[in-house]
């Protein structure tokens, strides 16, 4: 292979991985944008989605992607429930409280999975897991393409919801100014519950989409996903849904290019280093619009 084909291959891998990262990050950024809560349990909801697909596949024998039919509504309701039972009670407390509460939820989810399903890595067996499509010498993984399509669909759906419906207007109003939204008659408590439900649902969708590629493990993986989601949202700009795509792609490309042209052991570190640099020099994110410094 010539150099530029390798480069194209790397870029394609990076962009596709980036699509996956964007899918993981978009729920986190939605929740942060509206509720100003950094959801430490986000990655654990992703893992929950993975286990939903694993169990669906193992117990019923259907294609893991079909578990979305159940996982999407259940994820939405779980998120709403968590918001109602926990976050709604501390909405006026210092922002740290919400961070700590979601950290607690994260520990509970991870360890509850460990208790019920066990600690050994689980995945699904599907025929298309290793299928690749070749375009001009560049190979792309089928599952990653599906994940990319899911990202585009999820973000397009979210965009339509936010900009084309009455609930979306209410969500955007709440994000902009909670008190102002309440003054014009928006039930911001209900909006918060819906938004957290949506965020959880997006995390679960990401988990189901990813399961043919990865092995699910209960406790560590949640933290890894949460960190990735943070990196994605901070790279793109916290609170901006469209920027999550850009942030995800930047992260994917930085990791893949760093791993292939620099030392590959430090693959994860390149993303984290980019994350720290962005936090330090452009805390509003590469594509964020708010110019206020944190």
């Amino acid at each position, binding site marked *: 292979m010539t150099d530029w084909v390798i480069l194209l291959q790397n870029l394609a891998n990076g962009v596709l991985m980036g699509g996956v990262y964007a899918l993981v990050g978009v729920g986190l950024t939605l929740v942060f944008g509206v509720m100003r809560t950094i959801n430490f349990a986000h990655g654990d909801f992703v893992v929950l989605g993975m286990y939903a697909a694993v169990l669906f596949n193992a117990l019923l024998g259907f294609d893991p992607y079909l578990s979305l039919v159940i996982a999407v509504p259940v994820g939405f309701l779980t998120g709403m429930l968590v918001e109602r039972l926990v976050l709604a009670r501390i909405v006026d407390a210092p922002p740290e409280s919400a961070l*700590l509460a979601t*950290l*607690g939820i994260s*520990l*509970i989810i991870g360890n509850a999975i460990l208790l019920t399903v066990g600690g050994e890595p689980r995945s699904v067996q599907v025929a298309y897991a290793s299928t690749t499509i070749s375009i001009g010498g560049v190979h792309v993984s089928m599952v990653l393409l599906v994940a990319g399509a899911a990202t585009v669909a999820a973000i397009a759906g979210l965009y339509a919801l936010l900009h084309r419906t009455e609930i979306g207007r209410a969500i955007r109003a709440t994000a902009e100014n909670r008190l102002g939204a309440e003054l014009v008659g928006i039930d911001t408590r209900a909006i918060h519950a819906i938004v957290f439900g949506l965020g959880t649902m997006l995390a679960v969708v990401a988990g189901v989409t990813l399961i043919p590629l990865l092995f699910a493990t209960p406790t560590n993986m949640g933290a890894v996903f949460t*960190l990735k989601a943070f*990196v994605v949202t901070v790279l793109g700009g916290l609170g901006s849904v469209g920027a999550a795509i850009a942030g995800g792609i930047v992260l994917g490309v930085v990791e893949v290019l760093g791993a292939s042209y620099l*030392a590959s052991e430090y693959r994860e*570190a390149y993303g984290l280093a980019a994350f720290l640099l962005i*936090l330090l020099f452009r805390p509003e994110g590469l594509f964020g619009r708010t110019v206020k410094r944190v």
Partner: protein
Amino acid sequence: MTTHLVGLGVLVVVGAVYPLVFPGALTIAIAVLLFAGWATAWDVLGGWNGQVSLGHASFVGLGAYVVAIGASHGIAPWWALPLAAVAAAVLAYGWGWTTFRLRGPYFSLSTIAVAEILRLIAINEGWLTGGATGVFIATLPEPFGIDLFSRTAQFYLALAFAAGVIATVIVVSRIRFGYQLRAVREDEEAAMAAGLDPTGVKLRAFMLSAALTAVGGGLYGMVLAFIEPHVIFSLLLSVQIALTSIIGGRGTVWGPAVGALILVGAGEAFRTTFAQANLLIYGVLILAVVLFVPRGIVGELVRRHVRRRYARRAQS
């Protein structure tokens, strides 16, 4: 002040006789004391100064690695521990210098990233750290014929560590620096208006917190005698240290120690029920604390005590 000194005295006396009374339960007592020390050290930054770090496992790991690598080069622990403290302070200086421009959740996020990068370095730089498999501490010197691998000796070292950190915090809470810490925590702008340099204060708090944590990390290395980067640099250890302090009561002298007693005790009590899932109890407890006692256990007790005293004074 006197209450704190009495408490410290009780801790030292109870600790001194503990190995004679419960010689079979030393390992768990060491865990309580190490966590008490780490959580109290974390609290210098996280409680008194209000900067929530989720990366303190880095300093635990740094301390453990300095002691282990030192031991393999014939450097005795009593030289390696101060060295670890200095190395941690230097690391905290560089780390804080870059990240203290960020506030609140942004700072917490950056600490996770820095700790992850350190973990990757420990795993990949095998020439220094033994790589992913970790390092053994094969031999330790025997000062005055004391075997540093024995649990009793390690218990007294951990006791000295915990008591030392708590004593440091008692002193810090009384001196000018302690008031600066609290001023910056409450309102950075107001502190700046009063002539303080918030970044400088946070940096010094971070360095002190890091140095103390690394000393405990060095002791932990001796207790484990085998240091794996996955364990010692894990996010879970960072989270455990932070939660111990928060559940016990941030910004109080005894809160982190009480938190350590409760959490390590609860972890041990549920070990048989939950096996490796004993962090579940941390999750449940932190939720309970955030929802019902946001000041933490000791913080809430102190608040009630203060209110009662004011009420009594108002009546008389």
